[in-house]
């Protein structure tokens, strides 16, 4: 779970930069963490 949340945060930082915001802005980081968590619960590894 931690790995997926960290991957989500890295992805969120990339979105912050891509959409012209500062890399440390909370929107992308919190959004990325939420995505990582949701993906852990519902996505990919659900069948395992």
């Amino acid at each position, binding site marked *: 779970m931690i790995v997926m949340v960290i991957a989500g945060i*890295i992805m969120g930082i990339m979105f912050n930069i*891509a959409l012209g915001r500062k890399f440390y802005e909370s929107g992308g980081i919190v*959004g*990325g963490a939420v995505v990582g968590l949701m993906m852990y619960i519902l*996505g*990919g590894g659900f069948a*395992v």
Partner: protein
Amino acid sequence: MAAMDSRLKRGYLSLIIFLVVLALSIIIKPHITIQTILVVLAIIIMIIGQAKIQDLVAGLILHPIMAMTAGFLIAGAMGLAGGFDVLLIILRAMAEFEINGYTVLGYIGVGVILANIPTIMPMPCGRILAAALIPGVYLYGGAIANYYGIILDPALPLTDPTNFKYITVVATILAAFIVNAAASCGPSPLGGIGGIGEGNMGTPIGSSGKSQACGIMIATGVCALVIALVVQPLPYS
């Protein structure tokens, strides 16, 4: 006004039915193909939205890679039923949700979640959600740009710096969503291409799901970066 209200009500109903059925399909894993479920779903939403088959394909921007008919039918039905208007209202409300005066997710955070929805709810074919939700993602890309004061001016050429900035924001979120959707069939527990690979190797089904999902998340961010930083306007006058 009354007509708009009833359209929004139909939109809420169709969007809720669509998302609940998709989530239930992943959780319950029914022994029928997802295409059958989607076609039935499209018929239900068509009835709610009072739409005809001819209406569904009109006004949609078709892309060859997203030829999944069921996804397009859903997109057409949702568009007519007002599902995308409602989706935009919900996304805006999520983006502007505040605690102690601070937004929790903001427009970027909601954009990140929206771009990753296909892998959060992985279908056996990535085209399904890509085709079904792309009009909503396109509208939300415009909403992000407008929120940061970037307005599309139809009187100016598309290569004008302001217009190009608007297009870049929309293209960034749209491309990230498409890449995420295209890859999302890999970790699908409903029998995606990753499951086929696992079956051929004789490994337990779903054993590579989590690692695939991590890779897709990172690739989605890389795609957004590439589109935003590398794409330049064409030098024509």
